[in-house]
């Protein structure tokens, strides 16, 4: 089967799965609406002020969209960081880039940036800057002549992550807005219904990052052969790395700005897709967008329902899946390279 046909088939199957999961997610929740009631709301046959309309259209639907966007963006960021560093375990949270972005968001909140779309853009800019800063730091610490070794990169990621987490703690203790643990919960990663205008901005920024990574997919395949080989094959390696680097930071920063830091999506999803589709980034980038959406939507649907009417943070669920997965990868596939 040609690459194009495999891509279409994979995207088709994933899209069907995404729609199915989204439908399930719209129909379940702690409000305990009946299926006909949700259907009435979705088809516009329920009054605008009815509980089924408000719960389905104002609460569940925007949250489903946010989950799909955030999951897709994180998975693509994972593919991008893995291609860029030629390290299969690279991922926004593992590399400390999410912590950098979270630091940016909290700083923006201290400066008074809040809810309106324009201010949300401001928060995203801060998050992007934080992500860039953290990613650059990791890269500079880990870079040695001849490339990046897996363990040095992971260690730098851990160090940078710890640094930014401490910086966040400092901000929190200075400002004392932590009296009731709201920020602590935010730091675990939470999806909330986002108003339509901000959701559109979220989508725009995430798609911009996706587009940059997608456009670099072919060259990332060549980079996998080694930087020298890539240059000999006509790839401007420095430019490629800059572009993917910025795109991955943009994706991470955007997600953190709108949902808080959610870990391990960028690790779990690309790896599962690689198991089926192989190493070709031209297949991985678009399928990661859809697959990441499915993964996070499933996780958030669980987060909303397993302890209802209380809720879990979705980041807790992704970590529970992702951390053992990370250990599994470390102990099996990448044992030799450590």
């Amino acid at each position, binding site marked *: 089967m040609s690459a194009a046909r495999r891509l279409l088939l994979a995207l088709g199957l994933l899209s069907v799965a995404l729609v199915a999961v989204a439908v399930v997610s719209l129909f379940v929740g702690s409000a*305990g609406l009946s299926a006909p009631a949700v259907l009435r709301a979705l088809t516009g046959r329920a009054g605008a002020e009815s509980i089924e309309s408000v719960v389905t259209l104002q609460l569940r639907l925007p949250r489903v969209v946010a989950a799909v966007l955030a999951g897709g963006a994180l998975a693509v960021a994972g593919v991008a960081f893995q291609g860029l560093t030629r390290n299969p375990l690279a991922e926004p949270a593992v590399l400390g880039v999410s912590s950098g972005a979270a630091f940016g968001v909290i700083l923006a909140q201290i400066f008074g940036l809040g809810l309106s779309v324009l201010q949300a853009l401001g928060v995203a800019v801060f998050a992007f800057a934080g992500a860039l800063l953290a990613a650059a730091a990791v890269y500079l610490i880990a870079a040695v002549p001849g490339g990046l070794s897996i363990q040095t990169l992971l260690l730098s990621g851990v160090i940078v992550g710890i640094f930014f987490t401490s910086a966040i703690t400092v901000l929190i203790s200075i400002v*004392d807005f932590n009296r009731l643990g*709201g920020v602590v919960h935010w730091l675990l990663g939470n999806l909330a219904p986002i108003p339509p205008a901000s959701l559109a901005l979220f989508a725009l920024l995430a798609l911009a990052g996706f587009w940059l990574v997608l456009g670099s997919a072919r060259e990332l395949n060549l980079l996998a052969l080694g930087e020298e080989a890539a240059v000999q094959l006509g790839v401007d390696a420095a430019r490629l790395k800059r572009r993917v680097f910025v795109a991955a930071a943009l994706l991470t920063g955007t997600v953190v700005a709108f949902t808080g830091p959610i870990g391990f999506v960028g690790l779990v999803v690309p790896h599962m897709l690689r198991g089926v589709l192989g190493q070709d980034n031209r297949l991985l980038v678009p399928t990661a967008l859809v697959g990441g959406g499915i993964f996070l939507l499933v996780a958030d649907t669980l987060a909303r329902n397993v302890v209802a009417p209380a809720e879990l943070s979705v980041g807790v669920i992704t970590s529970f899946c992702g951390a053992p997965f990370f250990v599994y990868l470390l102990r099996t596939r990448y044992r030799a390279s450590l």
Partner: protein
Amino acid sequence: MSLRGLALIVAAAALLLASPAGALTLRDMLGRTVTLPAPPARIVSLVPSVTEIVFSLGAEERLVGRTDFCDYPPAVRTKPSVGGMVNPSLETLVALRPDLVIATDEGNREETIRQLERLGIPTYLVHANRVAETIELITRVGELTGHAADAPRLIGEMQRRIDAVRRAVAPFGRPRVLYVLWPDPLIVPGRASMLTELIEIAGGVSITGGDGDAYPRFSLEAAVARAPEVIILADHSTGSSTAGRSSPEKWQHLVSVPAIRAGRLHSADLSILHRYGPRVPDGLETLARMIHPEAFR
């Protein structure tokens, strides 16, 4: 309080002050035994509510230290601070040469309390999640500071105002109330929170009061489905910071909620409601006016 009770407390206080070099053995609110060589004269409070109580009893001459969060009454500024509730500076604390530290199991770290024990500084733990426990706490702080005789006056005044609220709201129905401690993610008071009890006294029913946790992270759609008739947003934003700001505009689109339709969405800095001290009646009265404006016309 009966005259006999008053006499007992006065007698106890007299005993406390009179015992010259007599060591005293006390039991704190967590049932721990605290032994003091003499009645404490240099107290450090790591609990904002306790600091308020000390001042309300006129016992501030015995207070030599407080935390950054002890901000009421304004006169507390004259006392040196030992840092935050979670991360007080032990060095600063020790330098104040306290003969008693009052701390809590909710808000202070166990680590801090262990360190104080190791340093041989007597530590008295307090804990209050109910109005009755707040009253008990005031009595205990009175005894600790040698101002036991002042406690009944303060407690009596608080009881009188609490009872007045009860009476004022008694004739009316009990609306369903959603109290929002933190907006995103949604955190609300559960069964073990004093807020749930205060909402009850103020003549409402907290729709999240059945949850087992003290401060559960709650589902927004479950809150909407329970159709609250009054929504109260606690505002925690400090300075220009937007974290914890109550943002009533974010709730306006929930048009199926009776509270939104009726315009009964309140937002206020209710930090006094989160303290178990002498200002509980102040917070309670504000709460009651939001839940039952008709009772206070």
